[in-house]
């Protein structure tokens, strides 16, 4: 039973349309299911992210630490209208993206974290996040900042996003860029992949989420094991 004070600490919610799961065939022949994560799954996501918070490689530390806090905030009902999408390959977590609705018409992109690199999983998941905001949440704009050069190349340049420096993105310092509906639909055929519905056996395999083996994950990300283990 939630007490009165806790109820006051929780943000009010807007209605959020669900993100329908999809499946993507990757370059290595594996199939990734992209679906919403539920609050029940946050703990396993936090476990997977935890070792990355001190990984000084391609800004994994910054993204890992902030994503950890955002997901924890979501789990504890301290962030308004947050959602999280996961990429899952044979039950194993391959990547995470999250964001939230600022209001009915404006979305805020938070983070994109890839746990299995080299297969454009981050690009697929970021595109899925934009798809969610524009097509399922029905928003007009998504505000975006990049915290790494890789992110800047993938989002600002590849889409290409427009500068909207009058907006202060809530992730902090950098001025915001924006994805509009027009930009999204222009880029959609080039950048948004995946098929629906997900065959039942594939969807089933995406539950429960299994975190990747730490050794495999760190080798993939490009960190020496000695530094972390």
């Amino acid at each position, binding site marked *: 039973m939630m007490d009165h004070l806790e109820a006051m600490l929780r943000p009010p919610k807007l209605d959020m349309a669900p993100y329908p799961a999809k499946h*993507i*065939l*990757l*370059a*290595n*022949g*594996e199939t990734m299911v992209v679906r919403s994560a539920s609050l029940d799954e946050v703990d396993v996501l936090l476990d997977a992210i935890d070792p990355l918070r001190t990984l000084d490689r391609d800004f994994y530390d910054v993204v890992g630490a902030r994503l950890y806090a955002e997901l924890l905030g979501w789990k504890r009902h301290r962030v308004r209208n947050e959602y999280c999408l996961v990429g899952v390959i044979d039950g194993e977590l391959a990547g995470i993206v999250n964001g939230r609705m600022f209001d009915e018409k404006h979305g805020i992109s938070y983070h994109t974290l890839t746990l299995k690199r*080299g*297969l*454009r999983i981050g*690009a*697929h998941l970021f*595109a899925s996040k934009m798809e969610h905001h524009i097509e399922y949440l029905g928003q007009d704009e998504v505000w975006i900042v990049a915290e790494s*050069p890789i992110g800047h*190349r993938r989002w600002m340049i590849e889409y290409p996003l427009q500068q909207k420096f009058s907006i202060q993105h809530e992730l902090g310092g950098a001025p915001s860029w924006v994805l509009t509906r027009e930009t999204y639909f222009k880029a959609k*055929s*080039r*950048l*948004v*992949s*995946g*098929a629906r519905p997900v065959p039942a056996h594939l969807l089933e395999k995406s539950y429960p989420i299994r975190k990747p083996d730490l050794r495999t994950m760190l080798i993939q990300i*490009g960190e*020496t094991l000695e530094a972390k283990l």
Partner: protein
Amino acid sequence: MRDVVIVGAATTQFGRAQWSLLKLMAEAAHGAITDAGIERKKIDAVYVANMGSARNNRQAGIASALVDRMNLYPVAADTIENGPASGASAVKNGFLAVASGMYDCVLVVGGERMQEVNNFEATEFVSYLSHRFAEYIYGITLPALAGMFARLWMQKYGVTSEHLAMVAIKNHANALLNPASHLKMPIAMEGLLHSPDSAMNNPFVADPLRFFDCCPVSDGAAAVLLAPADLAKNFKKTPIVISGIGQATDTQAVHERPDPTVLTAVQTASRKAFAMAKLEPKDISLAELHDAFTILEIAQSEQVGFFPEGEGHLALERGVTQITGKLPINASGGLKAKGHPVGATGVSQIVELALQLRGEAGKRQVKNPRHGFALNFGGFGNNVVATILSKGA
């Protein structure tokens, strides 16, 4: 001239280095010295292959810096910069120094640390290879040149995107067997080309070349130790003979060539190497070709003389170039998947051949190799070095 043998060979892990360029080079050099089982004081000269340390790593005079780092004074030391062919050029110069009798023991090290700069800068830096006024100022890049070359080649010989992907798939599979490789990741045709998701998985970089048709930007170093054949008994490993070297140049601007699909420098360098070794293409047991872009493996496999004109992709289709095929090409994973730290590449090709000929290539070992061929391709074919290594008698 004296016969020259490789008595030590080593490479670092390719990929993204944790260390400075000098430390990478020192690691490879130390590996080659240890492999040969000699004392450092026996080394007379050091040749260092590198393309961009002054620009990318704020370190010029890299050969002098390496000698200092390794405490190898008072050896002679020279830096060799010949674009992506720097590695094989350095081996050639080391060979000449030993063959002439000037030195008895020469250490050749190639290294590059490209990930110290971002990908834009790395692409820009490699573009310095192009003709400054006919190509560079118009924004041409090496992927762009390779894309135009691929388009012409596809039109002329019926090569398809599937053939290009087959090169990538083969070399990624080989790289999985090479502990030193940069990309350890299998890839499959369906995800690359035949799925609705392929456009995102494998986007065009320079049409018709896609993401997985291009080599990665890598850090890494490799080293070999050269000595005269008559001193080979002083070293602990089986000596591998440098039996042929050929080098040739071509116009810097690709459009000045009568037919841009004819890689004249590849043909000439290869012919010279075969003549020096008194061998023919059919005698070669395995080859390391310069597949910075997948199309180059197919084109070079013909222009070196392994396959008739227009049939390189057919040999690929038949599996001839697989590790288990009649002529394995890029058993190491090639530049495509082992990686391409430009100054290191030519030396690492020689290291791979030496390990293969010694029977020390582990899971990617080619069966009973006798002669190995390496092609190091500078610029867009404007300076090419071909090297042939052979097992001793």
